[in-house]
């Protein structure tokens, strides 16, 4: 059910839609249809597999009705236009094909982008027929809530804008070295000791439920990342004994390294934590991290030396890392979950379950070579390397992100099929709620179109025009998306 077919049988023009639908045409003769706000409604079409009671669609109907007729659309004379309503067609029905589960309201988004408003303030839509489905099933956006805490509102708003861009995965890099804002019910000390502020800079169980449910209503999966064994400094204070004590000569230096992989207690802890995480986050997949493990601390620790010897690892600390990851993977799969891992885990030759997904992010080796290697080994791959949107530069850098072709690597058709999509990443070193939204949008829109639209949709000129218009639409919806280049929007200042 990855392919969604939403057929909109509507009236008129090829308004600019972002991301561009797979097929969009105007019926011969064209024509325009009015949408009187007082009477327009969404409804379930005859023959639809879902009807009233599908909460996702009901919520989406309500949301899009508000978006269509409310905030900040350019206004003409108030109340004009639709007087009498003669000739106004009553639209119902986004026809949603049967294989669509009660799920993704992407078609409603497309519909909303087609609705215009004329100078008299009348809402209209031109006759249009659209057949649409995503090119890749995994279209993700990563937010990092550890380098800086992001208030719940910022996350929820981002989910809304993701839906406008037809993203469908929120990769929540929830904890890392600097802070541990996730409030664990099993190990409450983790956030008590590890959050920037244990009261204000945390995500409570209620917050997490809110995010998961809000995402669901937007047709977005939430994949949470608890990155181990590196990137875990903030875990240490709340979980004594979890991290490896580093040594300076013969004595502990008082600093800590990655998770200590040689203790049974580590695996007991990890089992309990992931047990909780598995039930709190309903998605089948967990992101287990596994990137950038620094071996210096392990190398300094005499007990680890002894363990390495005992295990016959020699001096190869990657084997120790793999030993840890291996056990972690077993724990997670015993919990009935699938795993996503950063590419190092694959590079280090860890034995993975066949349904594991490898997340390609490094640029040290050409990422297309890595994509080829990962898929050649039979694993599914996700691409992020060219889409680190936290890395800013002067000018229209959305173009570089847009021009990426994820399948442009040496490999068989079968290998290409293993590429399930990609993710735009907004790491948090320099990002918090003050600059998140303008830094993310509309730049992430470029990634969204690359992952949704047909591979042949590559014209920068065409994309510029549509993306600039889409950005204005975002402003109208109250999203502080930054400009692509010089110019203006009619409805710039309504939303914020």
């Amino acid at each position, binding site marked *: 059910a990855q392919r969604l077919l939403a057929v909109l049988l509507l009236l008129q023009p090829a308004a600019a839609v972002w991301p561009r639908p797979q097929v969009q045409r105007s019926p011969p003769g064209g024509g325009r249809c009015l949408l009187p706000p007082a009477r327009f409604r969404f409804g379930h079409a005859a023959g639809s597999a879902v009807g009233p009671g599908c909460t996702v669609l009901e919520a989406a109907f309500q949301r899009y009705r508000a978006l269509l007729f409310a905030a900040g659309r350019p206004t003409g004379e108030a109340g004009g236009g639709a007087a009498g309503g003669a000739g106004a067609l009553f639209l119902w029905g986004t026809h949603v094909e049967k294989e669509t589960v009660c799920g993704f309201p992407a078609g409603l988004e497309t519909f909303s982008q087609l609705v215009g408003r004329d100078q008299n303030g009348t809402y209209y839509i031109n006759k249009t027929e659209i057949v649409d489905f995503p090119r890749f099933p995994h279209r993700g956006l990563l937010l990092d809530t550890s380098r800086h805490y992001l208030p719940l509102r910022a996350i929820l708003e981002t989910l809304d804008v993701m839906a406008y861009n037809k993203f469908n995965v929120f990769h929540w890099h929830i904890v890392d070295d600097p802070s541990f804002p996730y409030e664990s019910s099993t190990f409450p000390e983790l956030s008590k000791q590890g959050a920037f502020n244990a009261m204000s800079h945390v995500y409570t169980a209620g917050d997490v439920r809110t995010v998961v449910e809000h995402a669901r209503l937007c047709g977005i999966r939430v994949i949470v990342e608890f990155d181990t064994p590196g990137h875990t400094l903030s875990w240490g204070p709340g979980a004594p004994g979890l991290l490896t004590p580093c040594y300076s000569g013969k004595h502990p230096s008082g600093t800590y390294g990655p998770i200590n992989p040689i203790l049974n207690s580590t695996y007991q802890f990890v089992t309990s934590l992931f047990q909780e995480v598995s039930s709190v986050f309903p998605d089948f997949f967990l992101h287990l991290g596994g990137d950038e493990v620094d071996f210096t601390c392990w190398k300094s620790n005499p007990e680890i030396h002894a363990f390495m010897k005992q295990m016959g690892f020699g001096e190869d600390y990657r084997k120790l890392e793999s030993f840890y990851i291996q056990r972690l993977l077993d724990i997670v799969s015993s919990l009935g979950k699938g795993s996503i891992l950063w590419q190092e885990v694959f590079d280090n030759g860890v034995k993975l379950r066949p349904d594991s997904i490898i997340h390609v992010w490094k640029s040290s080796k050409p990422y297309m070579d890595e994509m080829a290697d990962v898929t050649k080994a039979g694993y599914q791959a996700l691409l992020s390397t060219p889409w680190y949107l936290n890395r800013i530069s002067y000018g229209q850098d959305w173009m570089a992100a847009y021009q990426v072709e994820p399948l442009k690597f040496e490999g068989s058709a079968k290998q290409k099929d293993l590429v399930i999509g990609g993710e735009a990443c907004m790491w948090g*070193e320099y*990002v*918090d709620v003050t600059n998140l939204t303008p830094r993310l949008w509309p730049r992430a829109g470029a990634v969204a179109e690359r992952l949704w639209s047909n591979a042949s949709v590559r014209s920068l000129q065409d994309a510029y025009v549509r993306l600039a218009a889409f950005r204005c639409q975002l402003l109208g919806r109250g999203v502080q998306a930054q400009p692509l*280049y010089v110019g*203006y929007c009619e409805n710039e200042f309504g939303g914020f």
Partner: protein
Amino acid sequence: MGRAVGLAGLLVGFFLVSAVLVSTSLRHGAPRAEPGPESAEWEDASGSGPEDSLWPLPQWVRTSRHQLQLAPDRFQLLHGAGSSAGPACGLLQDAFRRYYEYMFGQSRWRKRSRGPLGDRAAPELLQLQVVIESQHSGCHSYPHLGSSEAYHLTVTEPVAVLKADEVWGALRGLETFSQLVHEDDYGSFLVNETEIDDFPRFAHRGILLDSSRHYLPVKSILTNLDAMAFNKFNVLHWHIVDDQSFPYQSIYFPELSDKGAYSYNHIYTPSDVRLVIEYARLRGIRVIPEFDTPGHTQSWGKGQKDLLTPCYDEEQPTGSFGPVNPILNTTYDFMTKFFKEISSVFPDAYIHLGGDEVNFNCWKSNPDVKEFMKKQGFGTDYAKLESYYIQKILDIVSSYNKGYMVWQEVFDNKAQLKPDTVVQVWMENNYAHELSSVTGAGFTAILAAPWYLDYISYGQDWKKYHSVEPLNFPGSEKQKKLLIGGEACLWGEFVDATNLTPRLWPRASAVGERLWSSSNVTDLEDAYKRLTNHRCRMLRRGISAEPVFVGYCAHEARG
């Protein structure tokens, strides 16, 4: 996926300042002196003393470990005895209220269940008395290039005294005082006994905003003026019109914005302009408008027929236009009237006349211009034609008793400049050499080249801006004195109200400190600590300044 470095340092938040005692220390525009003999009382050299959030760092600071409490219900900012300003000085009255709000405002909703002060046996600071010493306080005037911004601040029990020649210095001192007041873990407001002697290193400390590439709503401009005051900037260089749009609504030539603005919504009415100027004045900030000619004027052409040069392809006009047409009398009639208006609308003694990036292609294509060149004996040197035009504009503007600023090309092209002309150096390439030439020729200069903040890059680029030494160019003492300051420029190609504030702040703060503080304030580690605290304070005051690096503020921006 970088690693968090120096986390421990980050965790020492500005608002976590508790009873950490900071021994008497002396700063003369330099990092804290070595601890004296009583160093046993030093809790932590990197601890959170009050001066750990001062930005820009004052010229001379002496802090005592002796702390005073402030009771928001009792504490007063008021005019001291002997001040030439009194309650009729609206500028200071407004400033008193504003700074009261900055210091205590966010906490007033808290129920003060604690008993009277004295719980902690700390003595109380009751007042800040502000004394304006000059006969001419400046209350009802506009700040200008020669205004005194120096102040002297003494915080001792039971009354703090802020002395300044003019109100402009008092405004700077109020900002500094407000930066000294901090809230402890129990919600008490504390200030250490302190003495500060402060004055700016450079007289012209500007921010350039570009409201042509993108329109900036008045609200954004006002917010930015607030942030400028927090950073002791004193010039808003308003690059108000350019090729892309003409949002300035002219009284004499309303067609300019009717036709040249992005839309009827994207204009600055006369009252918008007055509002910006007054809001700036109340914060000790000059507003210098820039009407850039003869290039960068595409948007002028829409509302003013025949102002721009028609470009030709062979013998035929192409329908496109180039710079202002310098060969017509009508051009100068228009400019005379236009700048008459500008001279009266904008009270500052200076107008920025632009003069940058004039493209000669269109002039070269135009047979009438060619004819004119011949007649004037300019040969094929179009820089001479440019200078001819500029010369006439300069004369027009000086006839209104205004001084002018120009971009460096005007100097490079050897236009005759009045001696009080300010030349703005903006070309990144070898700007030290340009500073040397400009000042060598006896002209006043301001530096913008290393501070184009619209050029963004990944990471902590504030360090680069902070590390610039403006006087690091070859020249005599006299030449160095001719460099009167600098500007951080935020050109608008990629900036509008959605991203203006986080893109500008706190990056511009680095420029603010370079232009205010002593030249030996160059310790980046110390600056980092103060800047992160200063940024948190800006958040608290409603400026959504972006983070310097990993970490948090006790009072985050609201999402």
